[in-house]
């Protein structure tokens, strides 16, 4: 009996706190039809190094994301969203096609050649 009461108090308190927490992004994005500004992320490849090097970048669900890549050799970037996106770039400066992510979550963006995570997109 005590056990049940304790667990119940727990459930109520946690759920209550959740209610005061962040809004559902799906509820928010459902209501807003405004144009989201394009998020531009600069990526620089130099030899075996890439900048950014595993940083986290916040973006919104449905926001166009554009990578501007400066590289010394050609390569590929893979975006591990559902579904995945693959982009090829050549040496020099390339602006990749903007894409959007339609679900909240953490999406890894990796360099295929270097096998490194460039950024983790925190999609909210």
């Amino acid at each position, binding site marked *: 009996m005590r056990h049940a009461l304790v667990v119940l108090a*727990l459930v109520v308190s946690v759920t209550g706190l959740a209610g005061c927490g962040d809004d559902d992004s799906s509820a928010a994005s459902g209501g807003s039809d405004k144009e989201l500004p394009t998020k531009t992320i600069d990526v620089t490849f130099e030899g075996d190094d890439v900048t950014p090097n595993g*940083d986290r970048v916040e973006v919104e669900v449905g926001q166009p994301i554009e990578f501007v890549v400066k590289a010394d050799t050609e390569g590929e970037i893979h975006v591990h969203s559902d579904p995945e996106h693959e982009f090829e770039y050549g040496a020099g400066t390339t602006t990749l096609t903007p894409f959007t992510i339609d679900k909240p979550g953490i999406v*890894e963006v990796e360099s295929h050649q270097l096998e*490194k*995570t460039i950024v983790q997109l925190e999609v*909210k």
Partner: protein
Amino acid sequence: MDPVSPSWGELFAHGIGGQKDLPIPLELTIAGAVAALTVSFTVLAIAWRTPRYDETNGRPAPPRLVTLVGSRPWFYALRTLGMLAFAYTAMVAVAGEDSLINPLFGIFYVLLWVGFVPVSLLFGPAYKAISPVRTINAGFARLTGSDPERGVFEYPAWLGHWPAAIGLYAFVWMELVYPFATELGPVRLWLAIYVAAMLVGGTLFGNRFYEMGDPFEVFSTLVARMSIWGRRGDELVIRSPLANLANTPVRPGLVAVVAVLFGSTAFDSFKDSIRWVKFIQGDYVQDHDLGLLFGNLGLLSFVLMVAVVFTVGTMLTGVGPEMRRRDLPGQFAHSIVPIVIGYVIAHYLTYLLEVGQQTIIYMSDPFSNGSNWFGTANWTVSYYFSLHPSLLAVIKVLAVVTGHVVGVIAAHDRAIQLLPKKHQLTGQLPLLVVMICFTAGGLYLLFAA
């Protein structure tokens, strides 16, 4: 509508499955930790003083169910299911394409590993019921005219669950550290070694080997201790999960099994944190080519940390003359199981549901040539929990905190059973602190990763 087959090196740092869950919000993390803390000390202060859980708990299951579950047809049906699954898995392992759309990866990393957790919670020791290795062993035994129950030797009691702990470590090493974990060859090899080891064990020690040393069976049976299904002698009974848990047989290596399960899940979380990614990709590690070394060290450290902290926490108490301090960790190991289950649910829920659905879709196309064996190839995955991150975050925190509460209650009952009267409250404090650290650590990893 053929999905693009990812090329070789792409999967280097990356497991199967696309997006990962968002970190839980700070308010929820703190709320969870505070709730865990409050409930822990409340339980300590007001809970019962005489042990409640022992073998006599439980009432007999409905007679129809008992007959059904004890019948030969039921037994054969479940084992046949296991053999069909085994045959399918062997088929895609040997003849399938080396690409991420081969269902083998989903079967191995999701259905086999995480899938058995809810199934065992609901239905009892599920892996044991379908175990293909037991069936193969029984088949060989019949062919050679011997009894599968008995092997060449008696299973040594001191060995306990250590083979299972090692097997589980081999699995999580493959999943979390090995760079080529999403290539067909390595997974096929792992499974081949697993089957070979299980068959050798079965020949040497009989069926008892599977109960003690099969990593998947031990994992599933341990999780099943939190189900309502128990045995009192040979009788099938329905019991409170807490009573069932309290009757977990204490064997050598139980602490190791629990430590591998908890430590590996924690490391899986930690691996995705910004701090770790930047470290592994940073100049120091890259220039000296130490990525693999640090991966190994990371996994080992987390597992050892859990084992050591837990062992110390249980031993830091006064004991009566009948109990040896060394036996305490094993006696309390069952109380970590709910915390493990809670954390596994929190960490792997969307993984199981979303990648699991994706695997069921891939299973209709075992050779990646566009076929549709089971009619699921054109289904779409429902991303319900990913699309509702607030709800998902609440579920995660509830799972972790509930696991903690159940663990504290289990530890309390064991403590008043074992410890002498004057140490009953103070003796629980170190273990309580350990559990709070585990839970707070788990919540922190969900927040920071």
